[in-house]
């Protein structure tokens, strides 16, 4: 593949005192800002400053019926509404003392596969790949790589279609409810989708191959990775929460160990394990903790693309996203091939029958998404807590910025700025989810 030179070049010697600020971070969802301060060739500070008109979903949910939580929280994020619906449903079902299994569980995995595909493909091709190929945007990239863009549109369309077939709409899905769905498809209704996914598999295989050919900065770190983990499958909806630092807890213990604090420079809350350790969630974390649960084809594709048992380079998140996209295609095909229509679209749910408090931890495309609700016996929500993956990423992104700039201070300013933006984009931050508005200003001193 042809690669352009980076669009920003600068030949001046780097100053020993510099402040890199990017006023408006491009190619991330929402808005944000990057601020890095260098004094006497030493990195003093690196901050991801994000702010946006605060969202008060947690307060807004109080007093609403428990059945409304999936629909209300789905509106937090236009890219990952299914993730919010799944975490909300699982939390409410725990609060009501019910568990979903069998074909309803499979449909939930299927719909999640659809969301992973559409979210990962959008990020990889439209937001992240331009960085690696040296283009300012996907539009500039499309002029010289129309085949790649068309591939992305084909794949994203399939992801959208999975969600539409199961949930009624790809944005603001309407068919998901606590207990299951309002309507479930007949097996025959899924067959055309299954055929399209089988034909689309080659696009997913090619995507992994392509991402493996990119040039990656030499930047490896030891991260503590956190993810939902399951004994028998690559995690989507269910499992224990584990970390490479030894954490192994149920969803009910999440807030006992993931401690959030409010940071002055950001309207997002920063999370640390046991109040101390920053950590990574999302594709690399999932891969590092669950690689053996991938399909054989996905594992082999990962190996050929240059991924070993562990990935420690955040720039290679684009390869891991491609591997997860391939896995999602395969898992969706498997579920459709084996699907048996359930007897009922949902199980009965009685808000008075359970413990009243429930926790849901599922794997949104960007990482672990936690919901907790407390409801009264009539089903009114008394309390809600939502911890999105992007909020959990703030400290590790800042840490990456700090370390990356430390190791790359010889880079000219313009290239350093571009690489800093890319450091943030490695995490595919969904800034609207974490309600942060990032301001990016570049200031030199």
């Amino acid at each position, binding site marked *: 593949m042809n690669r352009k030179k980076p669009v920003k070049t600068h030949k001046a010697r780097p100053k020993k005192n510099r402040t890199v600020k990017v006023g408006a971070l491009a190619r991330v969802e929402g808005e944000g800002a990057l601020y890095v301060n260098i004094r006497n060739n030493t990195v003093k500070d690196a901050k991801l400053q994000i702010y946006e008109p605060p969202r008060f979903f947690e307060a807004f949910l109080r007093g609403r019926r428990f059945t409304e939580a999936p629909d209300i929280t789905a*509106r937090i994020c236009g890219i990952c509404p299914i993730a919010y619906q799944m975490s909300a449903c699982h939390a409410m079902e725990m609060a009501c003392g019910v568990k979903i299994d069998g074909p309803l569980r499979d449909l939930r995995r299927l719909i999640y596969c659809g969301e992973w595909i559409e979210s990962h493909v*959008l990020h990889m091709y*439209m937001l992240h790949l331009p960085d690696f190929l040296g283009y300012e945007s*996907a*539009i500039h990239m*499309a002029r010289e790589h*129309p*085949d790649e*863009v068309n591939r992305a549109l084909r794949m994203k369309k399939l992801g959208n279609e999975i969600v539409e077939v199961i949930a009624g709409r790809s944005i603001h899905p309407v068919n998901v409810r606590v207990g299951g769905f309002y309507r479930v498809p007949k097996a025959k209704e899924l067959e055309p989708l299954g055929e399209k996914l089988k034909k689309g598999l080659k696009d997913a295989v090619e995507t992994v191959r392509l991402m493996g050919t990119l040039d990656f900065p030499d930047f490896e770190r030891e991260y503590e990775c956190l993810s939902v983990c399951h004994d028998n499958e690559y995690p989507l909806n269910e499992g224990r929460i584990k970390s490479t630092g030894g954490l192994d807890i149920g969803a009910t213990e999440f807030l006992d160990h993931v401690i959030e604090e409010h940071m002055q420079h950001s309207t997002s809350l920063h999370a640390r394990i046991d109040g101390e350790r920053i950590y990574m969630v999302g594709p690399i974390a999932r891969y590092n903790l669950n690689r053996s649960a991938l399909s054989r084809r996905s594992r082999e594709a990962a190996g050929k693309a240059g991924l070993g048992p562990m990935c420690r380079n955040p720039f290679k998140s684009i390869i891991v996203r491609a591997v997860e996209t391939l896995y999602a295609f395969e898992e969706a095909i498997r579920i459709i091939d084996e699907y048996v229509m359930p007897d009922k679209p949902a199980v009965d749910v009685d808000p008075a029958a359970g413990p009243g408090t429930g926790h849901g931890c599922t794997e949104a495309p960007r990482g672990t998404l936690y919901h907790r609700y407390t409801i009264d016996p009539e089903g009114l929500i008394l309390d809600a807590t939502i911890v999105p993956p992007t909020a959990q990423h703030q400290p590790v992104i800042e840490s990456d910025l700090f370390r990356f700039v430390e190791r790359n201070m010889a880079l000219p300013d313009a290239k350093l700025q571009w690489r800093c933006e890319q450091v943030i984009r490695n995490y595919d931050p969904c800034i*609207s989810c974490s309600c942060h508005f990032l301001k990016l200003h570049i200031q030199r001193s």
Partner: protein
Amino acid sequence: MPRETPDRDTTRRERLTVVGIGNPDRGDDAAGILVARALAGRLPPGATIVESPGDVTDLVTILERSRCAVLIDAAQSEAEPGTVYRFDATKEPLPAEYFRCSTHAFGLGQTIELARTIGLLPRRLFVCGIEGRDFSIGAPLSDGTRAAIDAAASMIHDLVEKLLQEDSG
């Protein structure tokens, strides 16, 4: 260089599609949707009205299937709420300062340029913008934006009539 694409005109199923774009839960972002709904039942035969959340795949698919398209979306250029704009995007990009918002990481202007670059733009494409002010989740429509809905719908009605006459000529 972009690969040459065959003439797609004859394969486009829709003569003219009017697309109301937006999120009805985000204050003035509902404007595009509401204008589309105000046009229901008023357009001549040959025009189809659809609603879209603005997803890049959704919009590119609509553009690919239409010979002409009129997209309606909220704008944010710091003008008075309710100001109505009309842009001919057939040959030129939208001015970036009018459509800065996106709740889906890939805005309207970028989606149009992407479609243009890979040869999927319809023969005629117009974009109607309605200036908004408050795009917060759960916010009501601002007074200025609400007052502009009917005026925008009338403008689009006249534009659609003209485009359909040109298409049949």
